[in-house]
Structure formats: C-alpha cells, structure tokens
C-alpha cells in the first residue's frame, strides 16, 4: 500500500487540471498538477474558490471550461459516481443511519463487492485508522476526531486515484487537531495517489502538503514548496498567514526603497522586489536612535495586542508594519495607542527577492 509498490517513475503527472467555474460575480480559473503520492494544499481566504475547485475536481460542480486529466484519462464528462476519487468533506457527512463500519463499507459495496467482502475491507480500514473497536458505533456516538478518521477511511476504502480533502481539520478542537494532523500526515504518506487538500490554516498546509497553491479571488497568486512560500510570500494574505511583514519596493544593489523608507539588505538585487521581515525583527524606540538612517522610520502606534508570550504592536506611518516586542519593553517604553515611535529593522533579518 506504500508508494514504493507503485511505479512513480513514468514522470507523467497523475493529475492535470485547468478548472474554470463561472458564477455571477465570481470566476474560478486555476491550474493544478499533482504527481502520484504528492499532496497539494489549496490555501486561501474564505470565498477564494478553494472548495469550488475541490467540488469541480469531484464532479459535484460542473466546469464552465478547462479540463481534468487523471492518469491520462479525461475526467471532465465522467459523472461523480464513476470518478476514481475519494472525498473527505468538511463536516465529514458520515451517513447518520449507518454504523462506522457500514459507512466505510458503503463505497466498496457500490463498487460491486459483496456485503461480506465490503465489510471485511471496511474493517481493515477502520483498523488502520485505529478505530476497529468503534466499528458498530453510529456517527453521532463518535467524537470529532473519530468521525474524521472514519471519513478518511471511507474515502480511502474505494481505493481512489485522487483524494480530495475539504478542510479536514477545521471542525476539530485545538488539542484533537494536533493529534489528527499527525495521523493524517501518516495516512497521506501511505497513500499512493494524488491528494488535494483545501485549507485556510497555513500550519495544516505546511505540515501536510508538499506543494502549496495559494488562491485569492478565484486565481492562483502564488505556489511552491511550503518552505519557499513561507520564506518568500508574494501577497499580503500569504505574508499575514506566515507572519511576515511584506512590502514591494525597488532594489538597487543592497538597498531597497519602499516609499519613503530605505532598507539595506544582504542580497545583491536589482529592480522590483519584495522585501519581507518577521515582526520580531522590528525594534521600537521612543527617540530617534543614533546611526544610520537606513532601516529606520517614524511610525504611529495603531494598536497593541497580546501575541503568544510577546506583545504585537501594529504600526502605521510610511509603511504599515507589525512589531513583536516583550511585555517588559512595552512597559519600559510606556507605549500606548496613537503614540509616535521610531521603528528599526536589522539588515540581516530582512529578505529581498524579485517581485
């Protein structure tokens, strides 16, 4: 059942899709590709079109244009029930009138297995997700985490070539989420087909996916390996997700101009660039610090809030920025909203890359 048994060496992507869905006042137009065993996360704010893309792949929402090819076979005109897919829905949608076992056996049964066979397959899958002893339980008797695992087993029991997960962790509380996330990661690792995962949680995406596709307003705004996306965000949304301050500027050698502020950076770079730095790299001063005028600007405090063990200070001014400082520093500086401060960033903590 592991990826090594399959032949991933044919080089051809398993899934190639160009999804176009037109709605009044909304247009989804994204291209996706996934290799065997690869997990692609569709990340984006609410209403970006992630779930629509997933439904289009499943065949639950008709395409207005484009195509879906899976293992070289066109899926566009294949009805939902004949697509080699498995779907885990956001709230799982386990059939309330069937036991956990019969929920999982439903798919194999539809594929023509005898009742006995289907139940044996289902039993094996429940075993794999660690729920063998809950086989007879009705969905309403299961906890959120258990229901999620049954839903995953149900989707995998049809041996799909394409696994679609819609916010698989969103309905779980923080503690369960941690455990289920690592379980899910293991199961996705064992799965030899392509996986498309929809989420709005960057952590889920980073942990579970090999490749991120960020969607905003129905279009792909950025994609790449999670580490790359986290390090080099290209939109404000992504920057916020990964917790970085992000600006567009013009670079000339080791100097980047963003509006009235000049940053010195370590990269040698020219032309339009993005410059990103973490809020923890921003230091605040009551009076103008001595030294270089670079990486320094005057700002007004827009708001102050707790952020983990630190305090996050939102700054407005020539550039909007977030600064994370210690509660002690807030007390020392006697910071309040509306106050004028000086903000500085170390050159070594900034990161500039072509826009």
């Amino acid at each position: 059942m592991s990826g090594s048994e399959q032949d991933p060496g044919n080089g051809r992507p398993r899934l190639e899709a160009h999804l176009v869905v037109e709605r009044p006042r909304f247009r989804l137009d994204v291209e996706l590709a996934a290799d065997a065993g690869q997990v692609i996360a569709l990340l984006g704010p609410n209403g970006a079109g992630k779930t629509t893309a997933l439904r289009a792949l499943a065949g639950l929402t008709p395409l207005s244009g484009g195509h879906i090819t899976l293992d070289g076979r066109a899926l566009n005109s294949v009805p939902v029930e004949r697509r080699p897919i498995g779907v885990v829905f956001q709230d799982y949608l386990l059939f309330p009138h069937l036991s956990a076992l019969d929920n999982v056996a439903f798919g194999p049964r539809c594929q023509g297995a005898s009742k006995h066979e289907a139940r044996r397959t289902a039993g094996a899958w429940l075993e794999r997700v660690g729920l063998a002893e809950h086989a007879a339980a009705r969905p309403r008797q299961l906890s959120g985490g258990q229901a999620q695992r049954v839903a995953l087993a149900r989707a995998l029991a049809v041996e799909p070539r394409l696994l679609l997960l819609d916010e698989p962790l969103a309905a779980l509380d923080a503690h369960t989420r941690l455990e289920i996330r690592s379980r899910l990661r293991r199961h996705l690792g064992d799965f030899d087909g392509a996986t498309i995962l929809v989420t709005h949680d960057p952590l889920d995406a980073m942990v579970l996916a090999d490749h991120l596709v960020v969607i905003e307003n129905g279009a792909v705004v950025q994609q790449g390996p999670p580490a790359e996306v986290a390090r080099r965000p290209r939109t404000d949304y992504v920057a916020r997700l990964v917790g970085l301050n992000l600006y567009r500027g013009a670079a000339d050698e080791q100097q980047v101009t963003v509006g009235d502020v000049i940053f010195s950076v370590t990269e040698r770079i020219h032309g339009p660039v993005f410059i990103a730095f973490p809020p923890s790299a921003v230091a605040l001063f009551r009076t103008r610090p001595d030294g270089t005028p670079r990486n320094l600007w005057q700002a007004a405090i827009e708001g102050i809030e707790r952020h983990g063990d630190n305090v996050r200070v939102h700054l407005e001014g020539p550039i909007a920025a977030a600064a994370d400082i210690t509660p002690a520093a807030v007390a020392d500086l006697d910071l309040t909203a509306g106050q004028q401060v000086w903000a500085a960033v170390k050159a070594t903590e900034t990161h500039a890359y072509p826009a």
Partner: protein
Amino acid sequence: MLLAVLGMAFLVLPLAGLLVRAPWSTMPERLAEPQVLEALRLSLVTATIATAVCLVLGVPLAWLLARVSFPGRRLVRALVTIPLVLPPVVGGVALLLVLGRRGLIGQWLESAFGFSLPFTTAGVVVAEAFVAMPFLVISVEGALRAADLRYEEAAATLGASRWVVFRRVTMPLIAPGIVAGAVLCWARALGEFGATITFAGNFPGRTQTMPLAVYLALETEPDAAIVLSLLLLLVSVAILAGLRDRWVTSA
C-alpha cells in the same frame, strides 16, 4: 380563555358523548357480530392496500416534486394536492367518470380485460388511495426538502448511482417522514366515506367499510353505529399515540 375552553369542549364533548351513550353491557356480542368484523376486516385490508399503493406511487412523485426541476412543477404540485381540498364525493364522481364502466379509461379496461373497478373491493382501494395519497406526497416531499443534499453528494463520490443513493441514503434519511406520511395516509383511507360510497357503493363484505357500516347502522340500529364509531375512535387514538411516541416528540 373562555373561548379556548369552549373550543376544546366543542372538540372533546362529542367524543365523550360516544363513550357515555355506548351500550357497554352488550358490547362484546355486538363486536363479535359477523357484520361488524367483516366491515372491520375490509376497512383494515383496503386501507392497508391503499397505503401501499400510495407509497409505491407517492414516494417517487414526492421525489420528483422535491428534487427535479421541470417546467410546470408548481402546477403539478397544486394538482396533486387537489384531492386534499376536494369534497370526497366529488372525487368519487370524478373516479366514476374516468374509471366507471362508461368512463374514459374504464370503458377500455372493460373491453380489453373484462375488468371493472366500480362497486368492487379494488374500487374501494382506488377511492381511498385517491383521497389519501396527497397526505403521503406532502409529508414525503417536506421530508425530502428538509434532508441535507450533501449526504447524497457524499454517496455519489463513493460511487453510488442515483438509484443506490435514493435507496441507501435518501430513503433512510427521510424514513420518519415516510412513516408519518404513511400513517396519516392510512388513517385517512380508513375513514374514507364519500368517494368510497360514490365510486364503490355499499355492499356488505365487498365494499362496505367501517364508515359506510356506521352510516347504514345509524338508520337501522343506532347502538351498532355507536359501537362501530367507538372502534374507529379507538383506532384513531392508537394511531395518534403511536405517531406521537415515535415521530412527533423525537422530531
């Protein structure tokens, strides 16, 4: 407050009257009379068959009305509910005109199969089903509309065809609605009088159901009418109790 009490009295007193005037001393013999048992058996059998007919035809009709969008759907829904508001006697006359010996379809049935519905037990079933089916259709359609369509989508992604989705997901999900509709339908069929007497006549043992027997007995033997009425009341109360315990309170 006073009006409410009056209203309640208006609904309850006649039923209490039945109990007060019932010939309790002779009750066992009267209940055992072959005529009574015959009418009761006929009523139960025809109402049950009529309900089965309504289920077979009404559930797909409800599904069509709830799930398939087609031009004229609102009109069809209105037509389907006509028997609900139509005086049953009119229904009986209409059935006679269509299925009677000289009726549009009845004529053809008679000449092609030598088969005639009016004044037969089958005719009773037809009359009862005609009057009772809207109860089932409306109840099942409501349940279908309230059911979460996403379960059906989930079933489709697991490879279930439309029919399998309906049989294994939709039907179980709307089972309470179907049962409630069937029980209402059955109760309506059991009490059916106007359409039955018009279309099927009043032949003891063949088309004389309980309500017809009550009506006839009232003229000749009032005490027997009371006994029969009590029997029907008992059945109604039993249905109500059964419905409440199973479906109304849990809903």
